[in-house]
């Protein structure tokens, strides 16, 4: 497993470096504003948004590259002739994604708990609480990986698999918002939803459930494609 994880790291090194840089950079900029005395609370909000988008992109790229990448450069054939079960290979790829996501989650949690919530501009119960709820972020990440996994199990282009995974999440996200909120007076209703903590909590709960369900289904089909089917 150690060598499989090492190989995953080497195969995804560029993605990790770029994704890591884009994830850390916004917080680094906020840190710089603190040092220079020009800090404002909204900077943390913006940095959080930018970083979580970078993290989601990173996961989408990892998922898209998981199988399609090695299929494209044909190194999958090298692995195929070794006595490695596909279940073990799948386990290594999923474990690698978890290892990558763990620090992302920890940093995000630390920022929310130690920089965002205690910030002077934050008022409990205001729409700002929306950002402190990390469930949509987690749900998106899980679905990005699941959907990306489904596409990477069938395609030979890592880019296409990643993009399709992103499209699934964006479509679901936009579709969910439009189903949830009446289109008449959309923006007023949207603000009202953000202010209604109970209603917002319900909406987040169901969104999370839908994302996780879709992710599990996508991942299962993708794994079945990869593990269960020898090429016919």
């Amino acid at each position: 497993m150690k060598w499989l994880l090492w190989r995953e790291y080497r195969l995804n090194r560029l993605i990790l470096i770029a994704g890591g840089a884009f994830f850390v950079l916004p917080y680094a900029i906020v840190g710089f504003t603190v040092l220079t005395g020009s800090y404002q609370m909204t900077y943390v909000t913006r940095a959080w948004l930018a970083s979580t988008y970078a993290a989601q992109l990173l996961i989408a790229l990892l998922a898209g590259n998981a199988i399609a990448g090695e299929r494209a450069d044909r190194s999958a054939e090298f692995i195929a002739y070794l006595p490695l079960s596909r279940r073990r290979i799948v386990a290594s790829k999923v474990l690698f994604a978890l290892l990558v996501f763990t620090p992302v989650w920890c940093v995000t949690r630390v920022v929310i708990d130690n920089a965002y919530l205690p910030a002077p501009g934050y008022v409990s119960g205001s729409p700002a609480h929306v950002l402190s709820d990390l469930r949509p972020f987690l749900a998106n990440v899980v679905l990005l990986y699941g959907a990306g996994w489904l596409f990477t199990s069938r395609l030979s282009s890592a880019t296409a698999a990643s993009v399709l995974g992103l499209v699934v999440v964006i479509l679901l996200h936009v579709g969910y918002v439009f189903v949830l909120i009446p289109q008449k007076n959309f923006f007023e209703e949207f603000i009202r939803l953000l202010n209604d903590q109970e209603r917002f909590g319900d909406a987040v709960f169901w969104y999370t459930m839908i994302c996780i369900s879709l992710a599990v289904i996508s991942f299962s089909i993708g794994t079945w494609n990869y593990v269960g089917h020898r090429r016919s």
Partner: protein
Amino acid sequence: MSLLPQSNGTGPAIELDGVFKLFGNSPAVDGLSLSVEHGSTFGLIGPNGAGKSTTIKMLMGLLAPTSGSVRVLGHDAGTEATQIRQKVGYVPELHLMDRWMRVKEVVGFCRSAFSTWNDDTCREMLDRYELPDDKKVKQLSKGMLVKLSLVLAISHEPEMLILDEPMSGLDPLAREEFLDGVLQTVCDKGQTVLLSTHSLGDIQRMADTVGFLYGGRLLAHSNIDDLLASTKRVRATLTNGSPPENLPTGVVWQQVEGREWLLTVADFTPETVQKIGDLQGVENVDVIDIGLEDLFKDFVKGQRSNS
């Protein structure tokens, strides 16, 4: 014929029984039945598209046959492919290991996949082929890549070696070194070897049994010495320029040029000459020994003209 010792293994190392493999509607392998004994060196010869690589992929459990059964070293290739790969050393035509890895990293990676990896064998082979540990795979020449593939295939001390046209594109020196490496390993360990190649010279040097594959079908499968002894070319003169209709059994291929009639006959016996001589309009019957290459060509040409 073979330079190799026979191992003490019993029973077939490879068993294919009525194997069909269809890609769409076209058969890549067409009812192939084949048995290769433990410790033998089997040469699989066929033109491009004959089904050699498809057959090997089915042996390694990478392709599922459309019908029929494939067993390797007693394991079913459909359900026990991982066990097969644990016991088989495979050298492919295209050496597709990760190009960014260093030699020592490829070795380390493969080592982690095999429970029977022998570091001493590996080190000895790497030193023998002068493969530098720190060199990246993408920096290796074709000859060095082939040698590295052989090191990886042999270091886990497999029971069987499958060589799928590994020497295509190699210069004669690299080819010689590769074959020497295979021969030495097989002589030391008595492994079963399946060698798929276009080169009949390599087959004659390495193999004790041979199979001719064409259109996914096995045209011949025999010990090379027996095959050469039992298959002869016959030259005769036709008095009226056209061959007789009732040919003797075992005719693989025939050709008429003017009044000269050439035919290649399998399962040849002294009576075969008598039978051909007795045919109406046939005289001056000569028997000619032919080599493996001509024999292979005659089998394929005969099959082509029949289809």
